């Protein structure tokens, strides 16, 4: 892992990987959505509305996955002071927040025809809403300090403190018998849905993940370049002084 701590090497590696992850995500999401809309059956109970599952469920998976990656990156940054880990966490946060928002909105749109309501305060919806606030709090905290390093360190602790919410979200449908349906894919005994529905679901899920990696690399490259610009500006201000000193 320390091999990749060099920003220059990261820029080279990500420059190579970027077009591949971009292409792969477009292909996977495209294939998944095609199968979701045309290649999979409609539900016996929900009819065509079940196709919203193929957007909603992978987005919810990604919201947890992004937060977990942020927590891992924050732990790496705090323990080993890996220079790119802070950047990774900061870059992942807006993507995770957008996936969480997407999950909440598509869930709400799906809930209206299915459950008859836009929103209900059941365990899973409430805990995902709390996750969304945790993302927003993280992004606010990182930008709240004049010294960026302070922001990274404080935000790393916040991510780790908030990580307790992730298992709560995962097991909320098991612990509380409420409106949101229990787990059908990631549970003991394997997935309980038919392959014709599971395949597009997993395709979109992996597609979202490659999309996340694509945008993550773009954002991290931007952060590294922004740091270079900041350093160059400081050098420009300090330049004449050091020439005499």
């Amino acid at each position, binding site marked *: 892992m320390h091999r990749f701590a060099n920003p220059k090497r990261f820029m080279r590696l990500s420059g190579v990987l970027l077009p591949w992850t971009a292409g792969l995500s477009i292909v996977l999401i495209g294939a998944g959505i095609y199968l979701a809309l045309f290649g999979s059956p409609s539900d016996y109970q929900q009819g065509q509305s079940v196709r919203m599952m193929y957007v909603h469920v992978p987005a919810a998976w990604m919201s947890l996955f992004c937060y977990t990656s942020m927590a891992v990156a924050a732990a790496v940054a705090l323990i080993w002071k890996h220079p790119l880990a802070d950047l990774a966490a900061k870059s992942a946060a807006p993507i995770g927040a957008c996936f969480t928002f997407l999950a909440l909105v598509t869930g709400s749109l799906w809930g209206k025809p299915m459950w008859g309501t836009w929103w209900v305060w059941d365990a899973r919806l*409430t805990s995902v809403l*709390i996750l969304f*606030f*945790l993302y*927003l*709090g993280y992004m*606010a*905290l990182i930008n*709240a*300090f*004049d010294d960026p390093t*302070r*922001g990274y*360190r*404080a935000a790393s*602790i*916040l991510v*780790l*403190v*908030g990580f307790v*919410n992730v298992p709560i979200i995962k097991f909320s449908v098991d612990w509380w018998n409420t409106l949101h349906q229990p787990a059908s894919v990631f549970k003991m005994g394997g997935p309980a849905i038919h392959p014709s529905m599971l395949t597009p679901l997993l395709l979109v899920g992996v597609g979202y993940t490659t999309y996340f990696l694509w945008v993550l690399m773009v954002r991290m490259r931007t952060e590294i370049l922004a740091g270079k610009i900041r350093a160059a500006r400081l050098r420009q201000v300090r330049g004449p002084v050091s020439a005499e000193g």
Partner: protein
Amino acid sequence: MDRFIRLVGRDLRLAQRHGFDSLLVVVFFVIAVVLFPFGVGPEPNILARIAAGIIWVAALLASMLSLERLLQADYEDGSLELLVLSPVTLEVIVLAKILAHWLTTGLPLIIAAPLLAVLLNMNVEGFAILILALLLGTPTLSLMGAVGAGLILGSRRGGVLLSLLVLPLYIPVLIFGVGAVDAAIAGFAFKAQILILAGLFLGTLALCPWATAAAIRQALE
């Protein structure tokens, strides 16, 4: 233990010398609760139905307003740095400060709560459980809030940011606190909610001083 008591005493003496302005938090609590009958109408049945929720939310907000004072003043005049350098473990120092904070803000809230419950026409069965739940809940709020207070040291707009950071973590305490009081009023068993509140309190008691100490250390680096 002796040092712990002396640290608590220091913070209490400081609060006293500042004229107990921590009691302003209780005034905010009372005013916030009193606003609700003006907002939702004075009909007693409606107020009785939402009384537990109003009191808990107002206690949450009042508790949060007072959190900045936990560490900010010491951070600004440099005494926090001296405390960190002292031979006493930072986690013990943090715990002492949280205890003093709860004694000056949480405890007055608990004393004021039954009076406000009367104002909101809450059912008599709920009073005892309200006090018990607040006794378990307000220290939990102080503990969780201390982590937030440590994270925002030296930041811009710290007070507002603190609410965004800490309120999502407060929500479970709110849910079970109100759940306990509502269950007691309706005549159902409330033992589960009280036990969960106690569990949350013990969990935060174990983990939050450590997290707050980590936050303070990174703020002073």
